[in-house]
């Protein structure tokens, strides 16, 4: 992995039909704050992640990794540029439309899982389907998916009864249950030990390929990058190979 502003654009190798699928970020700029306190969080970022590709974005705190996820996940509108999801620009959509894109096309995996305390592991997945307005059989089968991430035996347990690694596994299954086109993963190993971190990223890599989803994972953890198809570096809002 190299970190250089003069390196080729991270999506420059991909052309043709391959570029129409997955997630494409084109010339995105995002400034945060006002007046003298303005910070350029994203600076002319270009990125293409194909369906079934697992891309890691590393960089120091404040480099813009989370801002990239926010823009890619339709949580924030960029100042310039656009975000294409399977060829559809979602960056300029209304709040309502963005919410629809998030529940139908985008899956989030948060730090520590960020599970709903009142719900069992199985209900976390059912809830995601309910939010997306999906009926049974319209997404993954929740119980089957829990089995797939190795959490079938803990289906009836609530988050406080699960370990950090188990919570992340449930979080991954929750993000995938609606069959999203894009999976955005925020520091999934931040609260895990080395062995569990490796397990979780291995699982993410497997599910990315299995579910043919375009995955972006931002992380500080350089030990898990070996499982990724590509590793990008972000410094001062600029993305490079």
């Amino acid at each position, binding site marked *: 992995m190299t970190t250089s502003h003069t390196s080729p654009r991270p999506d420059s190798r991909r052309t043709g039909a391959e570029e129409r699928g997955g997630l494409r970020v084109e010339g995105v700029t995002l400034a945060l704050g006002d007046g003298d306190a303005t910070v350029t969080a994203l600076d002319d970022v270009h990125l293409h992640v194909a369906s079934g590709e697992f891309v890691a974005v590393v960089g120091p*705190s404040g480099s813009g*990794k*989370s*801002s990239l*996820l*926010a823009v890619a*996940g339709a*949580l*924030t509108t960029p100042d310039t540029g656009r975000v294409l999801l399977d060829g559809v620009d979602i960056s300029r959509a209304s709040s*309502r439309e963005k*919410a*629809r*894109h*998030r*529940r*139908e096309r*985008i899956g*989030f995996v*948060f*730090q520590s899982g*960020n599970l*709903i*305390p*009142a*719900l069992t592991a199985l*209900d976390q997945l*059912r*809830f*995601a389907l*309910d*939010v*997306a307005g999906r009926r049974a059989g319209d997404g993954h089968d929740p119980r089957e998916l829990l089995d797939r991430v190795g959490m079938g035996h803990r289906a009836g347990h*609530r988050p406080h009864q699960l370990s950090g690694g188990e919570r992340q596994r449930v979080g991954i299954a929750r993000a995938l249950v609606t069959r999203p086109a894009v999976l955005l993963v*925020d*520091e999934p190993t*931040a609260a895990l030990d080395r062995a569990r971190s490796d397990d979780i990223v291995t699982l993410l890599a497997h599910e990315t390929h299995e579910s043919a989803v375009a995955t972006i994972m931002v992380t500080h953890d350089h030990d898990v990058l070996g499982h990724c198809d590509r590793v990008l570096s972000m410094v001062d809002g600029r993305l490079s190979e």
Partner: protein
Amino acid sequence: MFLAWRELVFARARFGLMGGVVALIAILVVLLSGLSSGLVNDGVSGLQRLPVTAFAFAEGTKTDSAFSRSTVNVNQARTWKGRDDVGDAVPFGNMLVNAKVTTAAGAQTPIDLALFGVDPGSFLAPAVSDGAGLGDPDGIVVSQTVLDDGVAIGDTVVIDRLGTRLKVIGTTGDQRTFGHVDVAYLPLRTWQQVHAGAGPGDEAREGAYEEATAIALRARDGNEIDLSGGDAAAGTTSMTLEDSFGASPGYTAEISTLTLIQVFLYAISALVVGTFFTVWTIQRKHELAVVRAMGASTGYLMRDTMIQATVILTVSTAVGFLMGVGGGALLTTTPMPFALEAGPLVVAALLLVGLGLAGAAAAVGRIVRVDPLAALGGQR
């Protein structure tokens, strides 16, 4: 509904505490409602059960003293009766007296009575459920509450100072009270004698038999009485039956006080529910941000919270009302003026739930301001 129900079960202690507070308020609302109904019955049930559209009092009479200060002339009743929109107009006497009852066993017990003087042949004459109807000059028909206090048909009532002896000949079979005093109907002429202060064998002063407290008006079928027109013609000040309730001693003050307390209770309930859901929403801010990041619409989240509020309010109000009605049933056996009536209770329950929902709705408005960005670690 998916999340709402599961959160209710998961955080049942928290919701239970809040529901407990609402249930306690509901109990208080039931007791106050029962007290209000009881006071209404005690204060004006005697008036409520008169088949009267309006009363015409002496000209210039104020509402709060109408029955105790007003004196009209029977000729004014004739003027009212001659009007097209009036079906009937008869003199009505009303006065409070202290008396003693001599029971068949010879025991004497003090009793207060509201004497309603009515013409036995008029539309004001009460129907009796037991005993004889009004007619005998010395006979009185009393409220059932008089018999409940140990007085029997056939007992004699002696009015203090005058010594006028009246015999209990019948009962209305229901509660008829005025200003917390039991009603006794008696013939208008006997009432006029008592009102004039004439004891047995005394001659009432001149004009006494031409007087009454007010003129009871009954509208002609399908008509509304032109009260101001009638007042101008008869030289009276009239008011509807409902308006005349304010002339019952203490009635307005009692009802106003209880209404004020009830209004405060409703406001407190709305505030309690609103505060609970405000705190609940603030506590779940990060969780709500995650759900919004997952794409849940504001409507989805607000609907969920309002379902929780509806369940909590409905269940706790129902529990509180059941407990209140149970406790209230015990109070009806005491001398306390207390009456459980379905109408006011249903209105109170609907108000409690409705205002609680309004409080919750105001609180969940915060959901709109929850930023889904907060779900991302770097934005926390």
